[in-house]
């Protein structure tokens, strides 16, 4: 097993030589994960891009760690030379979520950042236009935050149709109306 991870270990050593504070973990073959500080993220990412061959930004995702009062941004990078997927994980303070935009490194980072901005409320400094991407005229909490109460919002905004609220098995309605018996299926153990 270890012999297969030579490339990954070498990348880990190289990253640690350049940025001592980066916590690199080799997750498995072809996958490494890096925890890093938010402050000098663009420098770190451009180092990975220019010197380590991680030229492809696959996507940026955001995780809401409500219990820690933090957002975690995950930057997925891919190296075509080494065939390694790197996940750069950044923790941000939930109350003051701000980070530098990567749109100068990859133009398409803009779209991901706009989406994260609108769904979580993370602010990207230096982004050319942080406007609505998918939502329109949204004035509530950003909807993908875990403290946004979807059910309460729906109950307040929309009318339910009667019969929706009990969430019954539709077979029960049918059997009550037409007198059919519900077949007993064997339960999976």
């Amino acid at each position, binding site marked *: 097993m270890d012999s297969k991870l030579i490339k990954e270990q070498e990348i880990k050593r190289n990253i640690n030589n350049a940025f001592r504070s980066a916590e690199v973990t080799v997750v498995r073959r072809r996958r490494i994960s890096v925890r890093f500080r938010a402050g000098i993220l663009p420098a770190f990412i451009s180092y990975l891009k220019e010197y380590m061959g991680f030229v492809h930004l696959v996507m940026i995702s955001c995780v809401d760690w409500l219990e820690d009062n933090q957002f975690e941004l995950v930057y997925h990078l891919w190296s075509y030379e080494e065939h390694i997927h790197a996940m750069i994980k950044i923790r941000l303070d939930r109350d003051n979520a701000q980070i530098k935009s990567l749109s100068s490194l990859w133009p398409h980072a803009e779209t991901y950042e706009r989406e994260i901005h609108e769904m979580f409320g993370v602010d990207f400094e230096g982004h050319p236009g942080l406007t609505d991407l*998918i*939502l*329109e*005229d949204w*004035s509530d909490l950003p*909807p993908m935050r875990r403290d*946004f109460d*979807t*059910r309460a*919002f*729906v109950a307040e*905004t*929309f*009318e*339910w*149709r009667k*019969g*929706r609220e009990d969430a019954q098995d539709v077979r029960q309605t049918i059997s009550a109306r037409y007198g059919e018996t519900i077949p007993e299926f064997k339960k999976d153990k």
Partner: protein
Amino acid sequence: MNDDLDRQNNNIIANWARKHSLWVLAYGTGCGAIEVPPTMTSRYDAERFGITGMATPRQADVLLITGYLAIKTLKRVIRTYEQMQAPKYVIGFGSCTINGGMYWDSYNTIKRLDDYIPVDIFINGCMPRPEGVIDGFIKLQERIARGQAKGWQHYQENLDWYRANQKKVIKNWTMPDYNW
């Protein structure tokens, strides 16, 4: 004015003509739009019932709402619906238009289509098969022939109620207020 609308609606000859030429606006929302191409093309061939596609709302008779409708899309749908010329019919397609379907607790899809635009026929199923769609169209044709597909008239008469519902979910109302 209402007498005039009623007269238009109950004109037997006109209804007979209307029911045999339903031009469906080629507009799809939600997953259900995927069932429309098989309905229209050779296998199920909806054209034998006089149902065919039309690219612009001004010349279409039927607006198919093929599934869940985001609030953002609702705005466009209302705009489209109001541009269509009467008599016009709306078909709600799939359980999402009836009661929210599997998006019942989603923050950005509407739950009851008939609160926002008048629906003449609902086709249930998630999603309805082309047979179901054609069946729904035939039911709509029957209603047209009987002069019962009066959704558009209902919309004109209860515009205030519909507007109030629409403005409740569409926060930034930038559309022109039409008057009939």
